[in-house]
């Protein structure tokens, strides 16, 4: 049963960690965007308005959760829960630090090290589509419906791009486990500098762009384009049910950043030194630092770019990202094949 206890503790810690992160993340985003737009942003609740998210959460909890007359009640209530569950599940395979050795036992800072972790990521992200699709449909109203149709088309399209961006990573590192992918990026250049998978630049770019689309963030936030379809799939949601969608979106932003760091930016890799306690906690610090930098990049992009038109979005996904990924995979396969087996005529 020790495995059971270990995993339970990890899941609990991860859950609390993600919720605290999201509270911070919402505040960071609002502050950062307001700085970029020459505004003050939230500044009433707590120092620098850091408790604003908490106040918003309390407000959402005490608001009435309205159910529209035409709603399909079962699915209407289930959709936010599915959304939140999918967002939380994704993080299970991401290692947030190097394995720590305590009293001769090694503990990995990762809930589960699946040998198909890369596929697991795709599987969970495909579940997230359901939350939005069902939310839109079950609301029984036209704007949510339009939003959910947009969402499913967009997420399916960009999931293909995301899957193809993962292939070169697996080809280069030769493993599908997250721990293996991170290990493969550790110090092999000059002894201590890791060779990060960011050298697969086309994949990195495609993955990042697909990540924006998968999380429905600007410039791909057509799913909830306020000027066109009110709030998209969550138009009819209020109170805590809306808050769940909101939290799930922010968890997804953090997860995609963490995933990009794990796959392309060396994960928890970085220089470690000092006494045991510093040495074992530095990888976590590196991981969080990289992830937060990427989160800030997400916010920066949101504040900078205007929303795309719908045909541009689909055209970009299918006619640019996917062909580029396919060509890059073939090129990489040839290069790796030559490196492994030599030229075909020798």
């Amino acid at each position: 049963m020790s495995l059971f206890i270990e995993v339970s503790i990890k899941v609990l810690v991860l859950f609390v960690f993600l919720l605290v992160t999201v509270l911070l993340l919402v505040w960071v985003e609002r502050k950062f965007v307001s700085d970029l737009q020459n505004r003050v942003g939230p500044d009433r609740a707590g120092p620098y308005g850091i408790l604003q998210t908490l106040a918003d959460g309390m407000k959402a909890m005490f608001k009435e959760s309205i159910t529209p007359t035409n709603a399909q009640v079962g699915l209407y209530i289930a959709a936010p829960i599915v959304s939140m569950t999918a967002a939380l599940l994704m993080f299970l395979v991401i290692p947030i630090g190097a394995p720590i050795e305590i009293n001769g036992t090694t503990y990995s800072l990762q809930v589960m090290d699946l040998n198909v972790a890369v596929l697991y990521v795709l599987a969970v992200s495909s579940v997230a589509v359901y939350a939005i699709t069902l939310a839109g449909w079950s609301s029984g109203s036209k704007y949510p419906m339009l939003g959910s149709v947009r969402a499913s088309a967009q997420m399916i399209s960009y999931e293909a791009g995301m899957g193809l961006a993962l292939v070169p990573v697996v080809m280069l590192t030769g493993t599908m486990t997250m721990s293996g992918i991170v290990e493969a990026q550790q110090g092999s250049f000059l002894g201590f500098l890791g060779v990060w998978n960011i050298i697969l630049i086309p994949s990195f770019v495609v993955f990042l762009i697909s990540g924006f689309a998968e999380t429905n963030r600007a410039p791909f936030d057509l799913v909830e384009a306020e000027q066109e379809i009110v709030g998209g799939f969550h138009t009819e949601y209020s109170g805590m049910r809306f808050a769940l969608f909101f939290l799930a979106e922010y968890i997804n932003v953090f997860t995609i950043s963490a995933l990009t760091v794990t796959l392309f930016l060396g994960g928890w890799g970085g220089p470690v030194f000092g006494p045991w306690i510093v040495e074992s906690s530095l990888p976590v610090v590196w991981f969080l630092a990289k992830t937060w930098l990427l989160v800030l990049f997400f916010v920066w992009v949101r504040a900078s770019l205007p929303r795309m038109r719908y045909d541009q979005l689909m055209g970009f996904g299918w006619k640019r990202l996917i062909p580029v990924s396919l060509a890059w995979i073939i090129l990489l396969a040839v290069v790796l094949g030559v490196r492994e087996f030599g030229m075909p005529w020798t």
Partner: protein
Amino acid sequence: MAETIVFIIFAAVALAGAVSMITASNPVYSAMGLLAAMFAIAVLYVMLDAHFVAAVQVIIYAGAVMTLFLFVIMLIGVDKPDAYGKQVPAQRVITGIVALGLFGSIVLAGRAAWITGSNAFGTANLNGTAEAVADELFGTWMIVFLATVMLLTIAALGTIALAYFRDVPEEEMVG
């Protein structure tokens, strides 16, 4: 013990999903039932250490196929009552016989070594990692794999051909 409990729970979910898929009057709930069955089966694959198959099951069926189902159902609209086709005479009797025959053959297949290649409920030494599956797929079963690829490509091409090259005058074609 824990394994048995998990198996019973998810086997029940799979069966309930399958039954609700057939009996639900709303097509969206039918799709949800099928989805539940797919997920439960994926969990059963995980219990058999077939992680790769489980992940692929969720990606393909839950991710691609069912999303397309839902998409189509929603776009067509579920409010219109279905026009039931003509019933075949003695439909229920025929269905019952076919169902019984299917059930019998599944039981037979489960028990007969000459069909499955292993003993009934025997513990075949399964290795479900991606590497093991890849070795089998691109080693032992390469020809079969390529044949399947050909078959699926032909099916896709056939669909496109049926959709585009019909004997309909140009002006009547939509889109």
